[in-house]
């Protein structure tokens, strides 16, 4: 998505807040520079790192990213607002992304979405009161051989049925993707991932 901006409850205007990007995050962002011919090209990787470590990308974070990349903050917001993946205000610990495209719809995806809404008491782009779950829909997740499907954070859940929802959402490990990860190139930034590491 694209020209219509979604997610988009009131963004967190926090321009006067103390810095939110830790030195480690800044260092991680700079580590992308050798890959590209411009610093701006490190913007999507940078936004991914920020969202992974802080949970969302606030205005303050955008201005700091702009500083590291030596571009204007408006360029950061311009790019960020184009993509559905980024949140400008806090989201839940886990994001549920339900596929709404054709194969999933044909095989009961809408019913799954309704069951989640009912179970959690939230609508799309909303977060549960306990801060556990945010709910969004997305177009085809390229898992149509497993429709209806949805992601909980990184983990893809396949052939989900409405009746599975209460049990699935009660499972604390439902977002765990247990697999080998690259240590050479995509080591995570050395910061706490609970958003608590605010230094610099």
């Amino acid at each position, binding site marked *: 998505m694209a020209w219509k901006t979604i997610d988009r409850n009131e963004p967190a205007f926090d321009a006067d807040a103390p810095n939110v990007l830790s030195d480690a995050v800044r260092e991680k962002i700079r580590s992308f520079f050798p890959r590209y011919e411009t610093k701006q090209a490190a913007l*999507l990787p940078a936004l*991914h790192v920020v969202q992974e470590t802080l949970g969302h990308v606030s205005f303050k974070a955008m201005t700091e990213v702009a500083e590291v990349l030596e571009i204007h903050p408006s360029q950061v917001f311009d790019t960020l607002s184009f993509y559905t993946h980024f949140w400008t205000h806090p989201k839940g610990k886990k994001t549920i992304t339900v596929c709404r495209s054709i194969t999933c719809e044909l095989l009961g995806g809408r019913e799954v979405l309704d069951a989640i809404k009912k179970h959690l008491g939230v609508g799309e782009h909303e977060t549960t009161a306990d801060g556990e779950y945010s709910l969004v829909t997305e177009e085809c997740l390229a898992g*149509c051989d497993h429709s209806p499907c949805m992601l909980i954070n990184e983990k893809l859940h396949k052939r989900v049925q409405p009746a599975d929802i209460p049990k699935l959402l009660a499972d604390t490990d439902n977002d765990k993707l247990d697999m080998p990860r690259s240590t050479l190139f995509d080591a995570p930034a050395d910061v706490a991932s609970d958003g608590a590491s605010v230094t610099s």
Partner: protein
Amino acid sequence: MPDYETVLLRNVGVEGSRTIDVYRSRGGYRGVEKALKQMADDEVVEEVKRANLRGRGGAGFPAGVKWGFLPKDRERTLLCVNADESEPPTFCNRVLMEHDPHQVIEGIIIAGFATRAQVAYVYMRVEFHEQFHIMQVAIDEAYAAGLLGKNILGSGYDLEVYVHRGAGAYVCGEETALIESIEGKRGCPRIKPPFPAIEGLFRRPTVVNNIETLANLPHIIERGADWFLGIGTANSAGPKLFCVCGPVNRPGCYEAPMTITCEELIMGDRFGQGMSGNASVQAVFPGGTSMGVLKADEVHMKMDFDDPRNFGLLGLGTAAAVVVGDKTDMRDVLRNMARFYALESCGQCTQCREGTNWMYRIASRIASGAGRIEDLDLLEEVAGRMGMMPGLSICGLPDGATFPVRGIVRKFRSELEEHIRGQEPAGAERVLSVLN
């Protein structure tokens, strides 16, 4: 096709197929050895041209010919690997990356060598989490084995490979939007010309190729263009992946030559194994949704680069078929598809931005039970006033939007009219809530 030898999916189901050791033990990286040690870059380009390897990303443009557009005197070349795979209901790139990442990497090295690229960026949609980790781990392995980085296998050729993750935007699969996205910008496609081969990423000569296109390269190099041309037909040569999904017994990604029909893909024992439950086929979108729709009596269409046009489709597309069962209301299908394109338009061309949204609103009105017969004509009219084909847009997204919408309106007109005639009069009151 009892004697078809699986090529692209040959390692699927083999234990440890993701690891470099297993890949090598099954003949992997022999294509790279041959290309880098025994061939000149131009010879690789010629061989791929001769094989008539047509792009698997949707447009079907011959890869070797595309590489031939690069300026001869270029100093720096960049390769973009299109792993954005966002066209519903396409998932064959995912299967390749998931089960056989080294086959993809081998293809990247060969394409990089042929085009003299210094860097390859794998642009991968962000929803591919598992696949991202698999690919990155495999890339690390390839670096450790001296297959990436400096002086690959002692040949003097250097190639760096980076995965660049997208952030949720279908249009970033379009090659120039993909380039903009890597540059850190909104994914708005560029006006062509200049084509990426002349001026692409960071204004360098750039080649964009799909994952499946690249996965064919090791085999073409190892076995030669004649072997490749011996599969399928001259115009639609080589092994091909097909997806089939929806209410079928065995949804999945299958490999076959492009002589297969849509019907075999749905019904065949080696493929979809027929409709599930007691549904029968009402409609099929055989090339990804963007190519248009077949009626039940048109499924004998061949899944090649030519036959789809005989059925009013835009082309073979991604060769991913979603089947719609007979009990599904085509109004819902129409709305779902119209919404997709309306929300995924990047918005820079008025015709596309407004046109896709008008189609979505009209489709919503029809689906909500407040449609009018003239809405069907209106849909056709709007569809005829946007898109690259009438020269009214920068990229092909709106053509992909109009083919399914027009296809449904034309081929299922009597069903839609019947629904509209049978609506409750109160339906009109629901219009306002739908239009929000």
